Protein backbone atom coordinates (compact mmCIF):
# COMPACT_ATOMS: atom_id res chain seq x y z
CA UNK A 1 0.00 0.00 0.00
CA UNK A 2 1.18 3.48 -0.82
CA UNK A 3 2.06 5.55 2.25
CA UNK A 4 -0.25 8.32 3.42
CA UNK A 5 0.51 11.87 4.50
CA UNK A 6 -1.43 12.69 7.60
CA UNK A 7 -3.53 10.38 9.69
CA UNK A 8 -3.75 6.92 8.20
CA UNK A 9 -7.42 5.86 7.66
CA UNK A 10 -8.37 2.90 9.69
CA UNK A 11 -10.69 1.53 7.04
CA UNK A 12 -10.81 1.54 3.26
CA UNK A 13 -12.14 -0.27 0.29
CA UNK A 14 -9.03 -1.10 -1.77
CA UNK A 15 -9.61 -3.68 -4.42
CA UNK A 16 -6.98 -5.43 -6.48
CA UNK A 17 -8.67 -6.48 -9.64
CA UNK A 18 -8.16 -9.81 -11.35
CA UNK A 19 -5.10 -10.22 -13.58
CA UNK A 20 -5.58 -9.34 -17.23
CA UNK A 21 -3.95 -11.16 -20.13
CA UNK A 22 -3.00 -8.58 -22.73
CA UNK A 23 -3.57 -8.70 -26.45
CA UNK A 24 -3.46 -6.35 -29.41
CA UNK A 25 -6.31 -4.10 -28.34
CA UNK A 26 -6.95 -1.04 -26.21
CA UNK A 27 -9.91 -2.27 -24.15
CA UNK A 28 -9.93 -4.91 -21.44
CA UNK A 29 -12.65 -6.12 -19.07
CA UNK A 30 -12.24 -5.41 -15.35
CA UNK A 31 -13.14 -8.30 -13.02
CA UNK A 32 -13.12 -8.60 -9.24
CA UNK A 33 -13.25 -12.17 -8.20
CA UNK A 34 -14.56 -13.10 -11.64
CA UNK A 35 -17.35 -10.54 -11.44
CA UNK A 36 -17.43 -7.47 -13.65
CA UNK A 37 -16.37 -4.42 -11.67
CA UNK A 38 -16.92 -0.76 -12.48
CA UNK A 39 -14.53 1.67 -10.76
CA UNK A 40 -16.04 5.10 -10.32
CA UNK A 41 -13.43 6.77 -12.58
CA UNK A 42 -9.80 6.53 -13.75
CA UNK A 43 -8.47 8.64 -10.87
CA UNK A 44 -9.25 5.98 -8.29
CA UNK A 45 -7.34 3.35 -10.29
CA UNK A 46 -3.62 2.70 -9.88
CA UNK A 47 -2.54 0.87 -13.08
CA UNK A 48 1.01 -0.49 -13.55
CA UNK A 49 1.92 -1.55 -17.13
CA UNK A 50 5.28 -3.15 -17.84
CA UNK A 51 6.50 -1.86 -14.45
CA UNK A 52 5.52 1.74 -15.21
CA UNK A 53 2.74 3.60 -13.30
CA UNK A 54 0.20 4.88 -15.81
CA UNK A 55 -1.23 8.38 -15.86
CA UNK A 56 -5.04 8.31 -15.32
CA UNK A 57 -7.18 9.91 -18.02
CA UNK A 58 -4.06 10.27 -20.18
CA UNK A 59 -2.70 6.76 -20.51
CA UNK A 60 -6.02 5.09 -19.78
CA UNK A 61 -9.66 5.75 -19.00
CA UNK A 62 -12.42 3.77 -17.32
CA UNK A 63 -15.57 3.07 -19.32
CA UNK A 64 -18.04 1.11 -17.27
CA UNK A 65 -16.40 -2.16 -16.32
CA UNK A 66 -13.60 -1.81 -18.89
CA UNK A 67 -10.22 -0.09 -18.99
CA UNK A 68 -9.34 1.67 -22.26
CA UNK A 69 -5.67 2.38 -22.94
CA UNK A 70 -4.69 5.33 -25.09
CA UNK A 71 -2.68 3.02 -27.31
CA UNK A 72 -3.25 -0.60 -28.25
CA UNK A 73 -1.21 -3.07 -26.26
CA UNK A 74 0.46 -6.18 -27.58
CA UNK A 75 0.55 -9.65 -26.18
CA UNK A 76 4.05 -8.90 -24.95
CA UNK A 77 2.84 -6.15 -22.69
CA UNK A 78 2.20 -7.01 -19.05
CA UNK A 79 -0.39 -5.32 -16.87
CA UNK A 80 1.30 -5.81 -13.51
CA UNK A 81 -1.82 -4.94 -11.50
CA UNK A 82 -4.75 -2.63 -11.30
CA UNK A 83 -5.58 -1.37 -7.81
CA UNK A 84 -8.85 0.38 -7.20
CA UNK A 85 -8.34 2.82 -4.36
CA UNK A 86 -11.99 2.93 -3.48
CA UNK A 87 -14.96 4.85 -4.71
CA UNK A 88 -15.61 8.48 -4.03
CA UNK A 89 -16.47 8.81 -0.35
CA UNK A 90 -16.27 5.03 -0.03
CA UNK A 91 -15.18 3.84 3.41
CA UNK A 92 -14.88 0.20 2.44
CA UNK A 93 -16.25 -2.57 4.65
CA UNK A 94 -16.78 -1.48 8.25
CA UNK A 95 -15.23 -3.67 10.86
CA UNK A 96 -17.50 -5.82 12.97
CA UNK A 97 -19.60 -3.96 15.54
CA UNK A 98 -18.43 -0.54 14.33
CA UNK A 99 -21.60 0.89 12.71
CA UNK A 100 -23.55 2.63 15.45
CA UNK A 101 -27.25 3.48 15.27
CA UNK A 102 -26.37 7.11 14.68
CA UNK A 103 -24.55 6.19 11.45
CA UNK A 104 -27.72 4.78 9.88
CA UNK A 105 -30.04 7.32 8.39
CA UNK A 106 -33.59 7.24 9.70
CA UNK A 107 -35.86 5.03 7.58
CA UNK A 108 -32.79 3.78 5.67
CA UNK A 109 -33.11 0.10 6.53
CA UNK A 110 -35.22 -1.51 3.83
CA UNK A 111 -37.18 -4.76 3.96
CA UNK A 112 -34.48 -6.45 1.89
CA UNK A 113 -31.92 -5.75 4.62
CA UNK A 114 -33.86 -7.80 7.17
CA UNK A 115 -33.54 -11.56 6.99
CA UNK A 116 -36.64 -13.70 6.86
CA UNK A 117 -37.73 -14.81 10.36
CA UNK A 118 -35.15 -12.49 11.87
CA UNK A 119 -37.52 -10.31 13.93
CA UNK A 120 -37.94 -11.91 17.37
CA UNK A 121 -40.79 -11.33 19.83
CA UNK A 122 -38.43 -9.36 22.06
CA UNK A 123 -37.93 -6.80 19.26
CA UNK A 124 -41.66 -5.90 19.29
CA UNK A 125 -42.88 -3.57 22.01
CA UNK A 126 -45.80 -4.65 24.18
CA UNK A 127 -49.10 -3.36 22.71
CA UNK A 128 -47.16 -2.06 19.71
CA UNK A 129 -48.80 -4.10 16.96
CA UNK A 130 -52.05 -2.35 16.12
CA UNK A 131 -55.00 -3.71 14.19
CA UNK A 132 -53.81 -2.24 10.90
CA UNK A 133 -50.70 -4.38 11.13
CA UNK A 134 -52.68 -7.59 11.48
CA UNK A 135 -54.13 -9.40 8.52
CA UNK A 136 -55.65 -12.63 9.78
CA UNK A 137 -56.50 -14.79 6.83
CA UNK A 138 -58.05 -18.20 7.39
CA UNK A 139 -57.57 -21.01 4.95
CA UNK A 140 -59.45 -24.23 4.47
CA UNK A 141 -57.04 -25.95 6.80
CA UNK A 142 -55.96 -23.37 9.34
CA UNK A 143 -57.54 -20.64 11.43
CA UNK A 144 -56.71 -16.99 10.94
CA UNK A 145 -56.29 -16.66 14.69
CA UNK A 146 -55.49 -19.37 17.20
CA UNK A 147 -55.66 -18.70 20.94
CA UNK A 148 -53.52 -21.37 22.56
CA UNK A 149 -53.62 -22.98 25.99
CA UNK A 150 -50.53 -22.96 28.17
CA UNK A 151 -50.57 -26.60 29.20
CA UNK A 152 -52.85 -26.10 32.18
CA UNK A 153 -55.26 -23.29 31.28
CA UNK A 154 -57.62 -23.63 28.34
CA UNK A 155 -57.41 -21.01 25.63
CA UNK A 156 -59.89 -18.17 25.73
CA UNK A 157 -60.64 -14.93 23.96
CA UNK A 158 -61.48 -11.86 26.05
CA UNK A 159 -63.67 -8.98 24.88
CA UNK A 160 -63.10 -5.92 27.04
CA UNK A 161 -65.29 -2.99 27.96
CA UNK A 162 -64.42 0.48 26.67
CA UNK A 163 -62.27 1.20 29.72
CA UNK A 164 -60.61 -2.21 29.62
CA UNK A 165 -61.53 -2.68 33.25
CA UNK A 166 -63.97 -5.53 32.54
CA UNK A 167 -64.19 -8.24 29.98
CA UNK A 168 -66.08 -11.34 29.01
CA UNK A 169 -64.37 -14.48 27.80
CA UNK A 170 -65.04 -17.07 25.16
CA UNK A 171 -63.31 -20.16 26.42
CA UNK A 172 -62.42 -23.56 25.04
CA UNK A 173 -63.74 -26.76 26.62
CA UNK A 174 -61.09 -28.52 28.74
CA UNK A 175 -58.49 -30.80 27.28
CA UNK A 176 -60.25 -33.79 28.88
CA UNK A 177 -63.28 -33.18 26.64
CA UNK A 178 -61.23 -33.90 23.50
CA UNK A 179 -63.49 -31.36 21.83
CA UNK A 180 -62.75 -30.29 18.28
CA UNK A 181 -65.76 -28.80 16.57
CA UNK A 182 -66.81 -25.75 14.62
CA UNK A 183 -69.71 -23.46 15.45
CA UNK A 184 -70.92 -21.56 12.41
CA UNK A 185 -72.98 -18.48 13.22
CA UNK A 186 -76.31 -17.71 11.51
CA UNK A 187 -76.60 -15.60 8.39
CA UNK A 188 -78.75 -13.04 10.22
CA UNK A 189 -79.23 -11.62 13.71
CA UNK A 190 -82.59 -13.26 14.40
CA UNK A 191 -85.73 -11.79 15.96
CA UNK A 192 -86.42 -10.59 19.47
CA UNK A 193 -86.34 -13.31 22.15
CA UNK A 194 -84.99 -15.92 19.77
CA UNK A 195 -82.16 -18.18 20.84
CA UNK A 196 -79.32 -19.91 19.06
CA UNK A 197 -79.89 -23.51 18.19
CA UNK A 198 -77.71 -26.03 16.40
CA UNK A 199 -78.51 -28.40 13.58
CA UNK A 200 -76.45 -31.03 15.36
CA UNK A 201 -73.43 -30.30 13.22
CA UNK A 202 -72.55 -26.98 14.79
CA UNK A 203 -74.40 -24.85 12.24
CA UNK A 204 -76.28 -22.33 14.38
CA UNK A 205 -79.53 -20.59 13.65
CA UNK A 206 -81.98 -18.46 15.57
CA UNK A 207 -85.17 -20.09 16.77
CA UNK A 208 -87.98 -19.08 19.05
CA UNK A 209 -87.02 -19.40 22.69
CA UNK A 210 -88.57 -22.07 24.82
CA UNK A 211 -89.31 -24.47 22.03
CA UNK A 212 -90.05 -27.89 23.41
CA UNK A 213 -89.85 -26.94 27.05
CA UNK A 214 -92.35 -25.46 29.46
CA UNK A 215 -91.58 -21.97 30.66
CA UNK A 216 -93.15 -20.36 33.66
CA UNK A 217 -95.86 -17.79 32.95
CA UNK A 218 -97.30 -16.94 36.34
CA UNK A 219 -97.44 -18.21 39.90
CA UNK A 220 -100.19 -17.43 42.33
CA UNK A 221 -100.06 -18.39 45.97
CA UNK A 222 -102.68 -18.86 48.60
CA UNK A 223 -100.92 -17.80 51.77
CA UNK A 224 -103.83 -16.79 53.90
CA UNK A 225 -107.51 -16.67 53.23
CA UNK A 226 -109.08 -19.54 51.36
CA UNK A 227 -110.40 -19.16 47.85
CA UNK A 228 -113.17 -21.08 46.14
CA UNK A 229 -111.33 -21.42 42.87
CA UNK A 230 -108.07 -20.66 41.11
CA UNK A 231 -108.39 -19.41 37.56
CA UNK A 232 -105.94 -18.75 34.76
CA UNK A 233 -107.34 -16.83 31.80
CA UNK A 234 -106.38 -15.28 28.47
CA UNK A 235 -103.95 -12.97 30.16
CA UNK A 236 -101.63 -15.94 30.06
CA UNK A 237 -103.33 -18.52 27.86
CA UNK A 238 -102.42 -17.03 24.50
CA UNK A 239 -101.40 -18.13 21.05
CA UNK A 240 -97.78 -17.61 22.06
CA UNK A 241 -97.83 -21.11 23.50
CA UNK A 242 -99.36 -24.33 22.33
CA UNK A 243 -99.55 -26.48 25.45
CA UNK A 244 -99.93 -25.49 29.07
CA UNK A 245 -99.13 -27.05 32.42
CA UNK A 246 -100.48 -26.17 35.83
CA UNK A 247 -98.58 -27.35 38.88
CA UNK A 248 -100.66 -27.21 42.03
CA UNK A 249 -98.04 -27.56 44.72
CA UNK A 250 -98.64 -28.42 48.32
CA UNK A 251 -102.22 -27.23 48.60
CA UNK A 252 -104.84 -28.03 51.16
CA UNK A 253 -108.61 -28.20 51.19
CA UNK A 254 -111.04 -26.84 53.74
CA UNK A 255 -113.25 -29.95 53.72
CA UNK A 256 -113.03 -33.49 52.43
CA UNK A 257 -113.58 -32.98 48.73
CA UNK A 258 -112.78 -33.86 45.13
CA UNK A 259 -110.58 -31.71 42.92
CA UNK A 260 -112.36 -30.41 39.81
CA UNK A 261 -111.46 -28.55 36.65
CA UNK A 262 -113.69 -26.63 34.24
CA UNK A 263 -112.91 -24.71 31.07
CA UNK A 264 -114.18 -21.56 29.41
CA UNK A 265 -114.20 -20.32 25.85
CA UNK A 266 -115.08 -16.73 26.82
CA UNK A 267 -112.18 -15.92 29.12
CA UNK A 268 -113.96 -17.08 32.24
CA UNK A 269 -117.25 -15.25 31.90
CA UNK A 270 -118.90 -18.64 31.71
CA UNK A 271 -117.25 -21.92 32.62
CA UNK A 272 -118.78 -24.83 30.77
CA UNK A 273 -120.83 -27.06 33.04
CA UNK A 274 -122.73 -29.16 30.51
CA UNK A 275 -122.34 -32.90 30.88
CA UNK A 276 -119.70 -33.06 28.15
CA UNK A 277 -116.64 -33.74 30.26
CA UNK A 278 -115.41 -37.26 29.57
CA UNK A 279 -112.69 -38.39 31.90
CA UNK A 280 -111.10 -41.26 33.78
CA UNK A 281 -109.17 -40.92 37.03
CA UNK A 282 -107.51 -43.55 39.12
CA UNK A 283 -106.03 -43.58 42.57
CA UNK A 284 -103.41 -46.04 43.83
CA UNK A 285 -103.60 -46.08 47.57
CA UNK A 286 -101.18 -46.92 50.35
CA UNK A 287 -103.33 -49.86 51.48
CA UNK A 288 -102.63 -51.39 48.05
CA UNK A 289 -106.17 -50.80 46.83
CA UNK A 290 -107.17 -48.69 43.90
CA UNK A 291 -110.13 -46.58 43.07
CA UNK A 292 -111.40 -45.32 39.76
CA UNK A 293 -113.69 -42.52 38.76
CA UNK A 294 -114.86 -42.01 35.25
CA UNK A 295 -117.70 -40.60 33.27
CA UNK A 296 -118.82 -40.36 29.69
CA UNK A 297 -120.44 -37.07 30.45
CA UNK A 298 -120.44 -35.02 33.59
CA UNK A 299 -120.23 -31.34 34.43
CA UNK A 300 -116.48 -31.11 35.09
CA UNK A 301 -113.24 -33.05 35.07
CA UNK A 302 -112.92 -34.85 38.41
CA UNK A 303 -109.20 -35.10 38.87
CA UNK A 304 -109.13 -37.14 42.07
CA UNK A 305 -110.82 -40.51 42.22
CA UNK A 306 -111.10 -40.21 45.99
CA UNK A 307 -111.90 -37.30 48.22
CA UNK A 308 -108.94 -35.33 49.47
CA UNK A 309 -108.69 -34.99 53.20
CA UNK A 310 -109.41 -31.76 54.96
CA UNK A 311 -106.02 -30.46 55.98
CA UNK A 312 -106.98 -29.37 59.46
CA UNK A 313 -104.59 -27.43 61.60
CA UNK A 314 -101.75 -28.15 61.88
CA UNK A 315 -101.88 -29.99 58.62
CA UNK A 316 -100.02 -33.01 57.38
CA UNK A 317 -102.47 -33.65 54.56
CA UNK A 318 -101.30 -31.76 51.53
CA UNK A 319 -101.81 -32.47 47.87
CA UNK A 320 -99.79 -31.77 44.75
CA UNK A 321 -101.13 -32.28 41.26
CA UNK A 322 -99.74 -31.58 37.78
CA UNK A 323 -102.22 -30.91 34.98
CA UNK A 324 -101.17 -30.88 31.32
CA UNK A 325 -103.47 -29.08 28.87
CA UNK A 326 -103.00 -29.76 25.20
CA UNK A 327 -103.38 -27.05 22.57
CA UNK A 328 -106.46 -25.45 24.19
CA UNK A 329 -106.73 -22.66 21.60
CA UNK A 330 -106.95 -25.07 18.66
CA UNK A 331 -110.29 -24.56 16.95
CA UNK A 332 -110.20 -27.87 15.10
CA UNK A 333 -110.05 -30.22 18.04
CA UNK A 334 -111.73 -30.62 21.37
CA UNK A 335 -110.19 -29.64 24.67
CA UNK A 336 -108.06 -32.38 26.26
CA UNK A 337 -105.95 -32.71 29.37
CA UNK A 338 -104.18 -35.22 31.55
CA UNK A 339 -103.17 -35.12 35.16
CA UNK A 340 -101.08 -36.90 37.77
CA UNK A 341 -100.02 -36.29 41.33
CA UNK A 342 -100.41 -37.12 44.97
CA UNK A 343 -103.01 -36.49 47.64
CA UNK A 344 -104.15 -37.78 50.99
CA UNK A 345 -107.52 -39.42 50.85
CA UNK A 346 -110.32 -38.63 53.23
CA UNK A 347 -109.54 -42.00 54.79
CA UNK A 348 -105.96 -40.82 55.44
CA UNK A 349 -104.41 -43.02 52.78
CA UNK A 350 -101.57 -41.82 50.61
CA UNK A 351 -102.81 -41.80 47.03
CA UNK A 352 -101.01 -41.58 43.74
CA UNK A 353 -103.28 -40.43 40.95
CA UNK A 354 -103.38 -40.23 37.22
CA UNK A 355 -106.08 -39.52 34.72
CA UNK A 356 -107.12 -37.80 31.55
CA UNK A 357 -110.11 -36.62 29.61
CA UNK A 358 -111.60 -34.37 26.99
CA UNK A 359 -114.54 -32.03 26.56
CA UNK A 360 -116.89 -33.64 24.07
CA UNK A 361 -118.22 -30.49 22.49
CA UNK A 362 -117.40 -26.99 21.30
CA UNK A 363 -114.57 -28.43 19.23
CA UNK A 364 -114.45 -25.28 17.11
CA UNK A 365 -113.88 -23.09 20.16
CA UNK A 366 -110.71 -21.81 21.71
CA UNK A 367 -110.59 -22.49 25.42
CA UNK A 368 -108.79 -19.61 27.06
CA UNK A 369 -109.62 -19.93 30.75
CA UNK A 370 -109.25 -22.80 33.20
CA UNK A 371 -110.75 -23.01 36.65
CA UNK A 372 -109.64 -25.34 39.44
CA UNK A 373 -112.02 -25.85 42.32
CA UNK A 374 -113.49 -28.36 44.73
CA UNK A 375 -116.84 -30.04 44.71
CA UNK A 376 -117.38 -28.39 48.06
CA UNK A 377 -115.40 -26.04 50.23
CA UNK A 378 -112.33 -23.98 49.52
CA UNK A 379 -108.73 -24.31 48.49
CA UNK A 380 -106.34 -23.44 51.26
CA UNK A 381 -102.68 -22.63 50.95
CA UNK A 382 -100.60 -23.92 48.05
CA UNK A 383 -98.80 -22.55 45.05
CA UNK A 384 -100.39 -22.66 41.60
CA UNK A 385 -98.08 -22.11 38.65
CA UNK A 386 -99.02 -21.89 34.99
CA UNK A 387 -96.44 -22.86 32.36
CA UNK A 388 -96.55 -22.57 28.59
CA UNK A 389 -94.79 -24.61 25.93
CA UNK A 390 -93.95 -23.73 22.35
CA UNK A 391 -93.13 -26.31 19.77
Amino acid at each position, binding site marked *: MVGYIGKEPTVGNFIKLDSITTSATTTFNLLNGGVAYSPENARVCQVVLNGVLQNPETSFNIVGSTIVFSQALTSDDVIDYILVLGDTLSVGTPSDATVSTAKIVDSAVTTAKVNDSAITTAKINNDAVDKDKINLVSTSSSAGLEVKGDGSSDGYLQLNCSQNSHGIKLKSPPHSASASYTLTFPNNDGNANQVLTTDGSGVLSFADAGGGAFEKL*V*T*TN*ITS*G*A*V*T*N*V*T*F*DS*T*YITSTYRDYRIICSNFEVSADSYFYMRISSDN*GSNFLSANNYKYASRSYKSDSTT*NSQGSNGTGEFRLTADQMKDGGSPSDHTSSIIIDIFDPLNTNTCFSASWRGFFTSSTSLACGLYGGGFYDGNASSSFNAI*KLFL*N*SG*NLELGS*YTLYGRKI
Partner: protein
Amino acid sequence: MPRYKLVNQERIQFTTEEEAQRDQEEADWEAGSFDRKIEQLRKDRNKLLAETDYLALSDNTMSESMTTYRQQLRDATNGLETVEDVEAYEFPTKPE
Protein backbone atom coordinates in the same frame (compact mmCIF):
# COMPACT_ATOMS: atom_id res chain seq x y z
CA MET B 1 -118.86 -15.33 54.71
CA PRO B 2 -118.08 -14.12 51.19
CA ARG B 3 -116.25 -16.36 48.80
CA TYR B 4 -113.21 -15.39 46.75
CA LYS B 5 -111.57 -16.55 43.59
CA LEU B 6 -107.94 -16.23 42.59
CA VAL B 7 -107.70 -15.13 38.95
CA ASN B 8 -104.15 -15.22 37.72
CA GLN B 9 -102.65 -13.42 40.71
CA GLU B 10 -105.62 -11.34 41.79
CA ARG B 11 -107.91 -12.26 44.67
CA ILE B 12 -111.44 -11.25 43.71
CA GLN B 13 -114.60 -11.47 45.76
CA PHE B 14 -117.45 -13.48 44.27
CA THR B 15 -120.29 -11.55 42.72
CA THR B 16 -123.80 -12.17 43.97
CA GLU B 17 -124.44 -14.25 40.90
CA GLU B 18 -121.33 -16.31 41.50
CA GLU B 19 -122.27 -16.81 45.12
CA ALA B 20 -125.68 -18.11 44.10
CA GLN B 21 -124.17 -20.38 41.48
CA ARG B 22 -121.70 -21.80 43.97
CA ASP B 23 -124.41 -22.30 46.57
CA GLN B 24 -126.37 -24.26 44.00
CA GLU B 25 -123.35 -26.38 43.09
CA GLU B 26 -122.69 -27.28 46.67
CA ALA B 27 -126.36 -27.98 47.28
CA ASP B 28 -126.50 -30.23 44.22
CA TRP B 29 -123.44 -32.01 45.43
CA GLU B 30 -124.94 -32.53 48.83
CA ALA B 31 -128.16 -33.76 47.31
CA GLY B 32 -126.25 -36.37 45.36
CA SER B 33 -124.43 -37.61 48.41
CA PHE B 34 -126.50 -40.76 48.90
CA ASP B 35 -126.24 -41.75 45.23
CA ARG B 36 -122.47 -41.35 45.27
CA LYS B 37 -122.02 -43.28 48.46
CA ILE B 38 -124.27 -46.15 47.43
CA GLU B 39 -122.46 -46.24 44.09
CA GLN B 40 -119.14 -46.46 45.84
CA LEU B 41 -120.49 -49.22 48.06
CA ARG B 42 -121.54 -51.18 44.97
CA LYS B 43 -118.08 -50.77 43.47
CA ASP B 44 -116.45 -52.03 46.66
CA ARG B 45 -118.95 -54.89 46.86
CA ASN B 46 -118.32 -55.90 43.26
CA LYS B 47 -114.59 -55.94 43.92
CA LEU B 48 -115.07 -58.32 46.86
CA LEU B 49 -117.32 -60.55 44.79
CA ALA B 50 -114.77 -60.66 41.99
CA GLU B 51 -112.14 -61.84 44.44
CA THR B 52 -114.13 -65.05 45.04
CA ASP B 53 -115.58 -65.59 41.58
CA TYR B 54 -113.07 -68.36 40.87
CA LEU B 55 -114.72 -70.43 43.61
CA ALA B 56 -117.96 -70.45 41.62
CA LEU B 57 -116.49 -72.26 38.63
CA SER B 58 -118.24 -75.50 37.63
CA ASP B 59 -115.33 -77.73 38.58
CA ASN B 60 -115.43 -76.50 42.17
CA THR B 61 -117.90 -77.14 44.96
CA MET B 62 -118.36 -73.94 46.94
CA SER B 63 -118.53 -74.24 50.70
CA GLU B 64 -121.72 -73.26 52.45
CA SER B 65 -119.95 -70.40 54.30
CA MET B 66 -118.63 -68.98 51.04
CA THR B 67 -122.04 -69.25 49.44
CA THR B 68 -123.52 -67.32 52.35
CA TYR B 69 -120.75 -64.72 52.20
CA ARG B 70 -121.25 -64.06 48.51
CA GLN B 71 -125.03 -63.82 48.94
CA GLN B 72 -124.55 -61.30 51.75
CA LEU B 73 -122.38 -59.22 49.41
CA ARG B 74 -125.03 -59.32 46.73
CA ASP B 75 -127.59 -58.15 49.26
CA ALA B 76 -125.34 -55.43 50.64
CA THR B 77 -127.36 -52.49 49.39
CA ASN B 78 -130.69 -53.86 50.52
CA GLY B 79 -132.37 -51.62 53.07
CA LEU B 80 -129.81 -48.80 52.77
CA GLU B 81 -131.85 -45.65 52.31
CA THR B 82 -129.80 -42.82 53.80
CA VAL B 83 -126.22 -41.60 53.75
CA GLU B 84 -125.94 -42.64 57.37
CA ASP B 85 -127.13 -46.16 56.47
CA VAL B 86 -124.43 -46.48 53.84
CA GLU B 87 -121.68 -45.07 56.04
CA ALA B 88 -122.67 -47.45 58.85
CA TYR B 89 -122.74 -50.54 56.65
CA GLU B 90 -119.92 -53.07 57.14
CA PHE B 91 -119.16 -55.82 54.64
CA PRO B 92 -119.37 -59.42 55.94
CA THR B 93 -116.12 -61.15 56.85
CA LYS B 94 -114.71 -63.35 54.14
CA PRO B 95 -114.63 -67.07 55.20
CA GLU B 96 -111.25 -68.75 55.54
